[in-house]
């Protein structure tokens, strides 16, 4: 771990990524394993819930979310365990969570305006992504500022 690492920013980034991962992993497990409780127009067809928006092709959005949080989490661990400052890794988390934020805005819009049903775990995920974006931006700006300072 580099001695001048902005620890609070890194710590928050890892925590938000981890919480987001746990949340998305729960939704993924629920998608594959649990008995669904949909509100549906025809039997066995989850039209009204969010099935048409809950998957991209055969892949559930929740799984994509879990992988994205996991990547952010391991990038944070990578920064923590590296001996030299890894500004690019911090930028990668920031970029990932920026994309995640755009996706979250769209998904929250879908819940409010199109599906007209709110999923608490999805809203938690959107919040985690917002927090992750803020903390990783903080981390990236602190690390890149420090990298420019003369050693």
């Amino acid at each position: 771990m580099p001695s001048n690492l902005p620890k609070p920013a890194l710590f928050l980034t890892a925590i938000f990524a981890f919480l987001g991962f746990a949340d998305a992993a729960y939704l993924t497990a629920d998608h594959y394993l649990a008995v669904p409780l949909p509100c549906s127009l025809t039997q066995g067809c989850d039209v009204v819930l969010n099935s048409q928006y809950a998957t991209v092709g055969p892949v559930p959005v929740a799984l994509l979310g879990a992988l994205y949080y996991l990547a952010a989490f391991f990038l944070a661990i990578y920064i923590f365990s590296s001996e030299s400052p890894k500004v690019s890794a911090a930028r990668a988390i920031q970029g990932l969570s920026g994309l995640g934020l755009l996706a979250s805005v769209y998904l929250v819009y879908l819940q409010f305006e199109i599906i007209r049903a709110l999923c608490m775990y999805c809203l938690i995920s959107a919040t985690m992504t917002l927090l992750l974006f803020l903390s990783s931006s903080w981390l990236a700006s602190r690390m890149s500022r420090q990298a420019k300072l003369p050693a």
Partner: protein
Amino acid sequence: MKNKGNATVWFAAGFIVIATVVVIIAAVVSSGSLNNNPDGTAPAPAIAADDWVRGSRDAKVTLIEYGDYQCPACATYEGLLSDVLPNYEGEVLFVFRNFPLYTIHPNAGISAQAAEAAGLQGKFWEMHDMLYEKQQEWSLTPTNRVVADNFDSYARILGLDLDKFHEDMNSDQVLRKIKGEVDGANAIGVGRTPTFYVNLQQIQNPANAAEFKAILDNALEPA
């Protein structure tokens, strides 16, 4: 020495992630296994004295709906039923039982309570119809405001005593009735809303009014 420290960090991170996944899978599996009858073959509980019914209790055919007032599909079926049921006066008894999908519809529980509370003032079906008719209006209101912002005005339109309406909504009687219906539905494996039972046997949700009529006609035919 440094490498050893790094390995420990990676090991701990990997362990935490794997442990989290295992705990989540175990939790989801155990909650999913609560469904006793996923294929829907168990009969619905018989019509009870405290069931809300439309039509004659002597009717030959019973149609039970397990519904959720915040479920858009249930609102669609409400429209379908209001076209179909008038054709079967005296022949079909319609029963509505609550099955609020608490996890996906934050206002499902409170709306069920509102309908039940209206029922204690003799206006169950009026509130039932109004909740479905105005579903878009109240669905997205935050749960802590939905009574004041929406349901109170419906109660006023129906001429309900507001104080009693509020009191009844959270009364033991109302909460117990809803819980009883939810427990009953879980016991027979109701997995979605709306779920319909004709003569206590689950049916596939009909796609349109004509299919609904065909099912009821079939049930009315002498065996």
